[in-house]
């Protein structure tokens, strides 16, 4: 995945309202009205957030003009999550290998 697209995803995720919207969509598709209900926000404000999420590829929206239900696109989120995990776990995972390497040396196994 291109770094630019990841930046767009991270930017979209940096806002608490947008994360709440994603959490709601994890339970199932919803219309803009349904998504707006828990927030003290106008529909245009919610629509703005939805546009950011859509641009990041985190949600998609139905084409039926009247309802346009929003749907979570889990794959984008999963890729972002995996990228961050790799970043954070670089050393832990390398150290697992170092640990195994040192254990081999301590046993004096052939090839080391």
């Amino acid at each position: 995945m291109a770094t630019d697209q990841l930046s767009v995803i991270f930017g979209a995720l940096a806002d608490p309202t947008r994360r709440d919207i994603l959490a709601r969509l994890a339970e199932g598709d919803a219309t803009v009205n349904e998504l707006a209900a828990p927030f003290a926000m106008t529909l245009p404000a919610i629509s703005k957030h939805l546009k950011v999420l859509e641009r990041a590829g985190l949600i998609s929206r139905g084409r039926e003009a009247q309802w346009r239900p929003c749907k979570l696109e889990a794959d984008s989120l999963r890729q972002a999550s995996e990228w961050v995990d790799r970043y954070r776990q670089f050393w832990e995972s390398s150290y697992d290998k170092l640990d195994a390497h040192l254990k081999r040396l301590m046993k004096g196994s052939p090839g080391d």
Partner: protein
Amino acid sequence: MTFRELDIVRVFEAPVELVWRAWTDPDQIAEWWGPAGMHTPRESVELDVRPGGVFRITMVQTDTGAEFPSDMRFTAVDEPRMLAFAWEGQRGIGAGSSTITFKDLGGKTELTNHYAGYINDMIQSFMVQGTNQQFDKLFAYLTK
């Protein structure tokens, strides 16, 4: 970019001299450098373990063959107690440094990796807010 410091501490069941060599011998560092799913070709490793010496190493994603080169420089070397290296911004990670401290625990070694550097603000905010409970729940749902 946000400045961040981070300590990763781990105890290894090996004497300090052995752990030091695992870090400073190119043949050995190629055996363990890089997370699961990555390997480090021996020929990509260039180690000149003295202040100002180069520390170049390339991880390769085993599945895809994608290469992740790091071009760093040793800034301090105190065998077998401390090893420090630094890098300019690369791969979306800002300039930074790592100081590896080798603590002799008598047959065991406590390794502390002190990271200090700049990281992308997006990643920073994502990492901080990733601890948000609802967010974790969402991820658990998405990745199950």
